[in-house]
């Protein structure tokens, strides 16, 4: 058994138990779910282009930003009927935000798939001051809110869409370094 609080990442595979399929991705380079062909998913792609028009009428929907895509997704899921399967691919931060939108719309286990994130830029919430720090690729980050150097714990909150960041008092860091040298 895997014990982890991370999102359940796995390669995307078209789920034949669904009757409609929607695939959202934060860049066009993300491949389609495996098994497309038996059924064709609707595809929404972030193109990061302010001239993009959402309704091209050609199947694929192009969105100007991840935020634009997520807003559109929230509206769509609020009206969606039973039978939809949602697939998401992209960066860790995008996937975290998709999960929040899907959970809020009442999608559950077996209705959403998350591809393994294609980057390691995670969201980190400061446990001391609640500030959300975006795009953290390293193991530490200086908190935008309280200035603490946060160490990123491997503990993820799906509700917050973020990893936990906890500071270490300077004296403690020095003592641990000293112990490591002498040990």
């Amino acid at each position, binding site marked *: 058994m895997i*014990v982890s609080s991370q999102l359940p990442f796995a390669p995307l595979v078209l789920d034949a138990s669904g009757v409609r399929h929607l695939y959202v991705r934060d860049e066009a380079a993300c491949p389609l779910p495996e098994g497309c062909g038996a059924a064709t998913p609707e595809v929404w792609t972030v193109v990061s282009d302010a001239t993009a028009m959402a309704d091209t009428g050609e199947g694929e929907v192009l969105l100007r930003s991840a935020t634009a895509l997520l807003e559109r997704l929230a509206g769509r899921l609020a009206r969606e009927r039973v039978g939809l399967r949602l697939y998401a691919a992209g960066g860790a931060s995008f996937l975290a935000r998709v999960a929040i939108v899907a959970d809020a719309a009442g999608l559950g286990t077996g209705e959403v798939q998350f591809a393994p994130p294609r980057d390691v830029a995670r969201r980190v919430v400061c446990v001391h001051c609640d500030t959300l720090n975006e795009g953290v690729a390293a193991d530490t980050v200086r908190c935008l809110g309280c200035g603490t150097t946060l160490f990123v714990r491997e503990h993820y909150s799906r509700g917050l869409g973020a990893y936990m960041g906890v500071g270490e008092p300077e004296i403690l860091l020095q003592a641990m370094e000293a112990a490591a040298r002498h040990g």
Partner: protein
Amino acid sequence: MTVQTSARESYRPPYQVTNSAETIMRFPFPFPEDIYMYSMNVEPHIRSGPVAAMRNTFDIDEHYVAECAEKARILQEDPKRCIVLPHMREAEWDFVELAMTTLSDQYPQHFSLRREGLDWHWVNRLLGYEQSFVFGDAGTLPLPPFEYMARQMQGDFTLHDQREDDLWMDGGMVTAQADWSLKFDLGMSFRQWHAPVPKAAEMGVFDRGLRFLLMLQHEKPVRRLNWTMTINPRLDTSPENFMVWGADRASVTPENVADKVHLRVELQTLYRLPRSNAILFSIRCYLMPVRDIMRVGKWRKRLHRVLRDLDPALSSYKGLDLYRQTVVDFLAPYDDGAPLSNGIQPDAEQPENVLAPAA
């Protein structure tokens, strides 16, 4: 149990907490054997047990007033220590009923409850509260029902919704925790909130524990002991305030070890709640300094052996690495290596005096 009726004690600097002989002898020492390994070690929470702290549904001791005052202060500083999701409303009332009926039944000198249909009258003589309310009508209490009652009890409480064959932490009041955060873990499943515990997952201990808890029945609560160590008698060892208390771990010396280092024991009890089908997890924290543990021969020897032979991964997870050896070195001269009886019960009626009293 004698309960002090005013808060003379302080769980933050300048620390001022003392344990009477009675409190020492009723302490739920967590090691039944000389070796410790993580396990679910669950048993029925019946009204008997090897030490007095385990013999009531919810244990009230001499620190009651001071702990409730500290809890109120923490909630004032950080309201996110109490969060209950809207779908747990029935569980809130279940908690009120369980707490009020058992406390008034088991401590009639301190608490009383009069019920006439849904008209309830609650008296808490220790905190000087008196409240008439309509059971089930939150508008008749000064605070939301769970918060109202949890503020009047020692220890932490979490509420767990059962769905998809898992238990989801969908509410709680957490002010005396061993380095975990309610606001962060809120909404997590049993497996998710245990994710940081090393080794236990590979041992399958969580799968077995979860399967057991999913079938927990009303009126058949269970309990287990868990432990860690804390520097200073500090209830609030939260990640939220780690920058405030974390440095204490580097403050232990051979001179202050007996007074600074505390064994922190959680008497964890779990209840199926009947109205909501939720599970209540009660985490009652006891802090006992090494100086007081020294006063029970069996406990000082066993603590020495457990800490000396502790799995390094567990030592690290519990944050003991900086001072564990100091404690072991301090205890070693007091352990003659003689075999000790199994179980946690003390080997004497009264505490002995091994060390000179603290300066």
